[in-house]
């Protein structure tokens, strides 16, 4: 048996490792607490005083509050949509003998491969000129962003959900069908509860991706649907970068992600079964 000291050694090691992991986040916090004049001088690793003015400024800005709401709506909407559709798609891919389904699987994934800059121009043109009903265009709308984010989040959802669904025995579907359930009922009553860990992980990761997305949001929103990450870029200007406020906003973007993330922490280990395909 190992000596009783070992746990403490490993705790010390882990603490050191965690320090390295946390340092950039800590540094972000330090920046948010500093006056601009302090930033470009000899760095001080310790936080000597707490100056909440950057946070106050962020909190008092109605614009940023609006961005926060947009971010929440868009990322939540997208995560739910993407997880739901990815779930249905994976269900179809694992349960039905669709011709060419391996090809379909691969080709849905390729949507995530394109560098995002590629899509900016065509998406702008499509959103403003093609995908519109009368005067309503998808540009600068929350729903537009929710749909646009599907391009890279939906493949991810399919990618993470497929092993989960593969691992659920097909006999369960069949049993439910024989027991008199309709096809929808099977999905809702039998598969959905069993896929919960995988769904939770997919939900949270796609949520985080959407929450953190910058480039598409910056290009495809103007007034009504701007998100918190685009808000950040407003502080990088020719007359100075407001690092303190940016850091404060960053802390604010981190908090909801942190909350959502810790809610599903326990699911992650069971749910993130990338390709843990049996056989």
């Amino acid at each position, binding site marked *: 048996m190992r000596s009783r000291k070992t746990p403490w050694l490993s705790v010390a090691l882990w603490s050191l490792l965690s320090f390295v992991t946390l340092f950039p986040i800590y540094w972000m916090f330090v920046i948010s607490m500093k006056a601009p004049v302090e930033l470009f001088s000899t760095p001080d690793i310790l936080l000597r005083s707490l100056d909440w003015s950057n946070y106050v400024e962020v909190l008092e800005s109605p614009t940023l509050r609006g961005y926060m709401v947009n971010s929440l709506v868009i990322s939540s909407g997208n995560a739910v949509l993407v997880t739901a559709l990815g779930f249905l798609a994976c269900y179809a891919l694992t349960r039905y003998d669709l011709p060419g389904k391996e090809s379909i699987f691969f080709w849905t994934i390729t949507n995530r491969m394109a560098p995002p800059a590629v899509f900016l121009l065509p998406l702008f043109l499509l959103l403003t000129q093609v995908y519109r009903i009368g005067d309503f265009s998808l540009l600068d709308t929350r729903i537009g962003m929710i749909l646009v984010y599907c391009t890279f989040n939906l493949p991810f959802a399919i990618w993470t959900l497929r092993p989960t669904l593969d691992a659920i*025995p097909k*006999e*369960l579907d*069949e*049993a*439910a*069908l*024989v*027991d*008199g*359930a*309709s096809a929808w*009922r099977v999905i809702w*009553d*039998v598969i959905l*509860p*069993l896929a919960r860990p995988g769904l939770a992980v997919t939900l949270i990761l796609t949520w985080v991706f959407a929450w953190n997305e910058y480039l598409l949001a910056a290009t495809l929103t103007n007034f009504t649907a701007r998100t918190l990450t685009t808000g950040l870029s407003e502080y990088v200007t020719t007359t100075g970068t407001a690092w303190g406020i940016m850091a404060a906003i960053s802390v604010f973007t981190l908090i909801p992600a942190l909350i959502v993330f810790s809610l599903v922490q326990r699911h992650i280990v069971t749910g993130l079964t990338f390709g843990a395909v049996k056989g």
Partner: protein
Amino acid sequence: MATVQIRGVTKRYGGVQVMHGVDVDIEDGEFVVLVGPSGYGKSTLLRMIAGLEEVSGGTISIGGRVVNDMLPKERDIAMVFQSYALYPHKTVAQNMGFPLLMQKRPKAEIEEKVRKAAEILDLTKYLDRYPRQLSGGQRQRVAMGRAIVRDPQVFLFDEPLSNLDAKLRVSMRVEIKELHQRLRTTTVYVTHDQIEAMTMAHKIVVMRDGRVEQIGRPLDLYDRPANLFVAGFIGSPAMNFLEGRLATRDGRRVVETADGTALPLEGAAAEDGRRVTYGIRPEHISVGEGGIPVKVSVFEPTGSETLIFGRLGGQLIDALVRDRIEGEPGQTLPFRIDPRRAHLFDTATGVRL
């Protein structure tokens, strides 16, 4: 309860035909066992009856209605899966009540029926447990409970006992049979275990390669297997097959093996010289005076009976006798064959002569 008619059913996967015109009639209240080695289409047939597989050709009717295009839920059937397919996230009670819930029955009725089924299956204590907290046999009973609560027209069993240990299998076999005797519901039961088939069925359908080899009552199959395959499949230990030619020796028809041994026959409807396979079940061989000398290699005493393995001119032969015979490997014993119980098959076609 209902009859099930299967008429000329075929099945193709892509370009491969796996079932070639299967016809089976199942009477109302009958317990029919589909039997055959694994992977020979019997599960497919069962799943077609259930509506889980599409029928490529022919018709399946339940209670006189053609169900080819019906969804499983419209067929009023219940099925027990090999893996039991219990819903892991539902309790025993919820599992058993699920079919009724799907029919939107009132809550009280569901509870009542589940309670009754649980009583029958001795599951009352476990109603609030989850499947993972149950033993194999209990899970199996829950699966059956789920099937019986809804009182379907037809029960379908897909190798329900194959995941159980030998002892449990015997007792569950009895339980299923008792259940059937009580409920009298038309039942189609798939197994690869011929003992299950023999002990449980009213009627056995032996399948191989997507074809029906023979249909009949268990003892009919035992007594008059239609071909080599059925003969070899039904009965345990399996029937001895000895190759030889028909001949007449001392005015009696016999089968002459390659080393010249004459195997007794009683009447044979074929000409001499024809290559045949002579079949005799081990239990129809006794050891005694006047038998054919067989060089014994292994004795397997089980207490109640003894299984003796030997060779007859290079061909394997075994006998099952109720006497306790002890001996040394290598010794020769006289095997007496009851000619009335001998079966004769054409070697080339395998068909019974």
